[in-house]
């Protein structure tokens, strides 16, 4: 590993101050960033660890009944901690990577990174969650801005994500067999005022809402209303694993399965 400095703050305020230095970048669980550093795809001079900041960890409920999950909460802790209150989210977190990745990787890292094949972005967008940072609150619809792009500003830290809990929900992922990331993953969430469908893994612009499916499902929440439907292949990812047409087809299949499972 090439040399960098690591700052280990104990409070959010210390972390914010440490990030004010030039060339500094946060590191949370490191399950994306450390492999990226090894590959020299990024070479920050200074990393600010968010791992030991108690205020960034844990799960609670706010007055509106939303689940508020600290950014540095691990995938394993979410899988165990929300199983009774929001099983679809627990299942998503428990299906990320493998057990060792889940014991270090965090919600905040996933949401900040916005990998086009990551799982959490689908849950955040499908529930219309709110991303909270050290300085503001941003609606999911405004947060995700394309592949690896978000509304996150320089030196800004994601502190928490607030998830409205749907009446019914499910996440179904078709895994890319080598990486276990989503080749296509669909999160379906039914609320009193309508249904939201978010798709990850499929599109060149990263996670997106499949609004045609949302409209039909909001009328009647039943997989059969989506029979034969798929989003346009235009703009879907094409790589050695799957063509754009195949991914578009999978979105239809995974969405129907998610509705049936919800």
């Amino acid at each position: 590993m090439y040399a960098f400095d690591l700052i280990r703050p104990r409070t959010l305020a210390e972390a914010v101050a440490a990030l004010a230095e030039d060339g500094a970048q946060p590191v949370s669980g490191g399950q994306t960033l450390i492999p990226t550093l090894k590959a020299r795809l990024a070479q920050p001079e200074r990393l600010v660890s968010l791992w030991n900041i108690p205020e960034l960890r844990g799960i609670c409920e706010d007055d509106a009944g939303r689940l508020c999950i600290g950014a540095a909460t691990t995938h394993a802790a979410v899988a165990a901690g929300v199983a009774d209150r929001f099983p679809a989210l627990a299942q998503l977190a428990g299906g990320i990577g493998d057990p060792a990745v889940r014991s270090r990787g965090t919600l905040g890292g996933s949401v900040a990174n916005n990998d086009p094949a990551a799982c959490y972005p689908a849950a955040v967008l499908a529930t219309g969650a709110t991303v909270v940072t050290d300085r503001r609150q941003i609606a999911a619809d405004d947060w995700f801005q394309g592949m690896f792009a978000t509304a996150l500003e320089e030196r800004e830290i994601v502190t928490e994500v607030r998830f409205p809990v749907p009446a019914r929900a499910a996440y179904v992922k078709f895994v890319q067999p080598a990486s276990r990331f989503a080749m296509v993953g669909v999160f379906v969430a039914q609320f009193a005022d309508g249904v939201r469908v978010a798709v990850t893994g499929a599109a060149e612009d990263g996670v997106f809402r499949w609004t045609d499916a949302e409209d039909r499902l909001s009328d009647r929440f039943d997989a059969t209303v989506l029979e034969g439907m798929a989003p346009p292949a235009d703009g879907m990812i094409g790589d050695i694993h799957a063509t754009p047409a195949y991914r578009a087809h999978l979105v239809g299949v995974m969405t129907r399965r998610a509705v049936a499972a919800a």
Partner: protein
Amino acid sequence: MADITVTVNGKAMRRSVPDHTLLSEFLRETLRLTGTHVGCDTSQCGACVVHVDGRAVKSCTTLAASVDGAAVTTIEGIASGSDLHPMQAAFNDHHGLQCGFCTPGMIMSGIDMVNRYKAEGRALTPDAIRHELEGNICRCTGYHNIVKAIEDAAGRMTSMATAAE
């Protein structure tokens, strides 16, 4: 440099390591515990799995400085004297290894999954074992005997725990 206090295989120690040191480097190069293997650069193979505070982690994807204050267990720390850990014994009995490169990681992941399933009161079926091994790659065995070994060890670990109670 980062000053860290860690307990490795039951032994408390204090060390000063460069900030960028990976836990795998710390174990292998500083402590000379070379049973922890490094098989990839992409955090995918699981040969480097150790336990940090009782949880399986990939030591190649963990900074040594981030385990300050924690207890680390490696493959060197699981046998009691010349008595193999039941997971090690089961890998031996079921031919769960050929070249042996993946074995330390397989065994540490195996122990972790048995402990977690036991704590949650869930059955560790062969299907569950295969699923739990998603982060451990073996280029030799074809996995069947690894799955058998973990299944058998789960039974041995449970009867051991019952006998101890």
